[in-house]
């Protein structure tokens, strides 16, 4: 089994960020479930915020954003975690996926997570975030992980619900990645049809 790469996209807006904390724990859980070795690359969207907006306006990504997009596209799996705003992913999170090529995530295993103030927001994962990745034709794992503020401070050691969900989600992502061939970036030149064919099929 070859070493695989998992890209972690974290769209927390604060610093330090509980979204990043959840993202890191999901990455660790996934790596733990993959004994063959997993390389984790983490992308903090906060650091790319201006570049993302600029790319939306100009149509091309800056060198730093190009690097981040390449890491996501080449990764064998993606962990995407957002802070929830107004009942949905925040604008930064959505904007990052808006600058990707629409086919960039097709058939890529994705684990989704979100943070919010209270558990009342948890279904945003199902009604907003999972449909986004369905649109992008990604393969989302069944367990989506929501962490409310109180989940981080539970004094009751028996309340292991968050940890359990993180481990289950990580195992699901690991199980999706292992049997797949390593991810490769699509090459528009390799797939360009010869002209005789373009002319014939017109």
């Amino acid at each position, binding site marked *: 089994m070859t070493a695989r790469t998992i890209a972690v996209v974290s769209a927390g807006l604060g610093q330090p960020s509980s979204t990043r904390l959840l993202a890191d724990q999901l990455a660790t859980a996934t790596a733990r479930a993959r004994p063959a070795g997993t390389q984790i690359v983490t992308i903090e969207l906060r650091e790319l915020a201006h570049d993302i907006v600029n790319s939306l306006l100009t149509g091309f990504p800056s060198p730093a954003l190009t690097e981040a997009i390449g890491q996501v596209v080449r990764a064998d799996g993606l962990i995407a975690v957002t802070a929830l705003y107004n009942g949905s992913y925040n604008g930064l999170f959505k904007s990052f996926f808006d600058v990707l090529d629409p086919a960039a995530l097709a058939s890529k295993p994705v684990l989704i997570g979100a943070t919010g103030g209270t558990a009342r927001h948890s279904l945003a994962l199902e009604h907003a975030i999972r449909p986004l990745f369905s649109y992008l034709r990604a393969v989302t794992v069944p367990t989506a992980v929501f962490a409310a503020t109180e989940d981080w401070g539970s004094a009751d050691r028996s309340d292991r619900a968050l940890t359990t969900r993180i481990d289950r989600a990580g195992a699901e992502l690991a199980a999706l990645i292992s049997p797949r061939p390593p991810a490769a970036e699509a090459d528009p030149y390799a797939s360009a049809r010869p002209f005789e064919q373009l*002319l014939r099929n017109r």
Partner: protein
Amino acid sequence: MQFGIFTVGDVTTDPTTGRTPTEHERIKAMVTMARKAEEIGLDVFATGEHHNPPFVPSSPTTMLGYIAAQTHNLILSTATTLITTNDPVKIAEDFAVLQHLADGRVDLMLGRGNTGPVYPWFGQDIRKGLELAIENYHLLYRLWREDVVDWDGEFRTPLQGFTSVPRPLDGVPPFVWHGSIRTPEIAEQAAFYGDGFFANHIFWPTEHFVRLVGFYRQRFAHYGHGTPEQAIVGLGGQVYMRRNSQDAVREFRPYFDHAPVYGHGPSLEDFTSQTPLTVGSPQEVIDKTLTFREHFDDYQRQLFLMDHAGLPLKTVLEQLDLLGEVVPVLRRELDALRPADVPDGPTHQALVAASLADAGTELETSSR
């Protein structure tokens, strides 16, 4: 090596004065720029084609015919002619008339156009953009080379026994460039026909275009038109100059910050470091433009965008005066570097000579 200017023909408010030119002023300004281009020794003037506000050039051959009558050496071209939404028959006719009027000083650059609604306004569908470009150009190509054409395609009324008039001047059609910023299939199309490929790389990083142009060169050779180095490449450029670099930056910044394409986005500094835009002294423009050859190898045509983002005509004409100093240096340097077997920029005279040489070879072969 050919140098010229291309204009989008946008009517944009000058952000420093709040003044918006009228359509009439803008159209006349484009003509003034073209005449100035000839005066300062440029080779090419190219106009865009648009069918929606805030743009004025909806009828390029009308404008180019008017300019042809007021110039003697300038090649009149387009950037771009919409091969998707124009009837190829009308393109064949319009540009053939223009070619006769201008005594051959005409070529054109084909593009697909990226404004969604323009397609349905002209009865087409943007999702068929590539197919339209391929089929329509194939018809245009034949109309200029076959005296009588029978045609049955997907997008246009069939033609039986159709002759596009007038026939091209001296039997040689205008040279065609295919412009694209990201589509390998258009580079493939240009290569298939042995036409030119124009990469307007001014709004995007150079690295992206290096592969596109390299692909065109390789496919040009694949289709037997010559070596990859002999393929006909054109590039865009965008400059703002003053004698002192700092003056150029200070003057251009408000235009940059409000420009329709990239305004309110990246900083001027980021954009100049990431794209071919050069804001500075004439020497900086020379240095940056010379790097294009290092990325793309010897090429045939360099067009500069000089008049967008609301720059007033007076400033544009001052810019052209400076460009008139820059271009002779670039021409000398780039012509000296170009190997003898790599062709110069295409002209009607050169195409006529090549077609006579071909005919001569055929005659020789058949008499043997």
